[in-house]
């Protein structure tokens, strides 16, 4: 028995007839921060969509807590505690900040912890507490990312997936987002982080995967990846 919460085996998937993922193997350990890096178009978002069930699994397995979830629709995966903060945030723009957070706790499992999770989100992002009645769509980019992360946490995630949480944010806000993720790590939240910002994500992660052309090219402890020549050359620009 391993302490892997997520095990992906030879996963193949894509859009319509177009195959994008070619046999992905990936593991996420409980209470660890795992990162997936790779250049634009390497298939990171596609992989996350396949994990969440927005895209069908053509071949292979997605095992979450020992059960193959690769045939379940996205909402059933969310009910199991697999929660994603999607690329582009996808907030309910015409709902208030509070309602967005509330929707995050939609599943029966999460509803039971609504109060506790809300306090936790406020402790992480005090600014949200003052903006509860504001329409999510009228908030700034940084604030919207906080709502998106908060909404994810409201779901009592067993595994929280981030797809490019720092995308489109000013440098100062990028740091804020990474600080928040570090805090979550200290709280013991299991996370899978997809990032373009290779420097920062390797700095806070435990384990990393490097993706290219829909395949995993390199994997290893984050601190080893930082020293890997190929990673240095291609992604860190050293």
């Amino acid at each position: 028995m391993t302490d892997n919460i997520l095990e992906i085996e030879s996963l193949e998937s894509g859009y319509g007839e177009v195959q994008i993922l070619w046999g992905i193997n990936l593991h996420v350990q409980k209470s660890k921060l795992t990162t997936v890096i790779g250049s634009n178009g390497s298939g990171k978002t596609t992989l996350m969509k396949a994990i969440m069930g927005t895209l069908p699994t053509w071949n292979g397995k997605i095992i979450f807590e020992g059960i193959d979830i690769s045939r379940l629709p996205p909402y059933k995966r969310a009910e199991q505690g697999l929660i994603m903060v999607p690329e582009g945030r996808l907030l309910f723009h015409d709902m208030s900040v509070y309602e967005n957070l509330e929707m995050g706790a939609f599943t029966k499992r999460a509803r039971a912890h609504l109060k506790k999770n809300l306090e936790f989100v406020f402790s992480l992002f005090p600014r949200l507490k003052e903006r509860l009645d504001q329409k999510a769509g009228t908030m700034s980019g940084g604030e919207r990312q906080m709502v998106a992360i908060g909404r994810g946490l409201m779901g009592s995630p067993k595994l929280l997936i981030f797809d490019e949480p720092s995308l489109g944010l000013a440098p100062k806000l990028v740091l804020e987002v990474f600080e928040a993720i570090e805090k979550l790590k200290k709280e013991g939240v299991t996370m899978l982080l997809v990032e373009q910002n290779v420097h920062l994500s390797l700095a806070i992660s435990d384990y990393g995967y490097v993706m290219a052309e829909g395949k995993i090219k390199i994997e290893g402890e984050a601190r080893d990846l930082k020293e890997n020549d190929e990673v240095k050359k291609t992604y860190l620009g050293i």
Partner: protein
Amino acid sequence: MYAWIAALINGILVGLVYGLAAIGLNLIWGVMKVINLSHGAFIALGMFCAYFIFHFAGINPFLAVILILIVGLILGMISYFIVLHRVLDAPELSTLLSTYSLSLIIIGLGTFIFTTNPRAIDIGLGSIGIGNIYIPITKILTGLFSILFTIVLYVFLYKTWTGKAIRAVSLNRAAAEFMGVNSTFILSLSFGIGVGLAMVAGCLIAAIFPFTILSGAVYELKSFVICVLGGLGSPIGALVGGLILGLLENICALKIPVGYIPFIEFVILVIILLVKPTGLITKR
């Protein structure tokens, strides 16, 4: 003078039920971006349900309305899976055609079974007189029930988990699914509620006006005008739009032959679409 006051009161009461009829159309558009061309057919079906429940069971429309809502909800949810689910993500023309065929089936069967003879429900509740103005009690009840259903819908959409899930799905289906919302169920439920409200409106209208199986088309047109007046996608706008239309009809009727009124409504529809295509009452 009395005629004007009577027209005002009648306009408000009838306008409320027009508003309710439009809300069903509006909700379906808001949640799944489908123009439900079977809306009028379901209004007519609601009228006939009310008629038969009254004539065979002796239950008046204001009591039968709950039963009719449930029937509409179930019919709508089933219709969603048969008619809409597979074409929902296809271009708009597909959903227009599929809801239109549903309408043809209902109206065709209805004409065959019920013929196009006019019918009416007379529960004989009498009128309330204030001075020289007499307002039928059925009309007053119709107005009150319309407000009631609108409030219940509003509370449902804004205060319950399921209602919030409907709003979430209408704003972002993919994100709602990530939160654990079964969006397919929510879409069918929304179509069920839209159809249910159309049938409820039909039931209430049947209590005040005579009708045939073809009457639905008239109210469908009114619903379109109301949605354009109030802006598609806003339930409160629909109620306000309904009030405007009801008042307009009743006040125009004082000066213009009734037969011209649908023509005037259609002209209003076209003018608004030309001048302000987003509707008169819109958020932001």
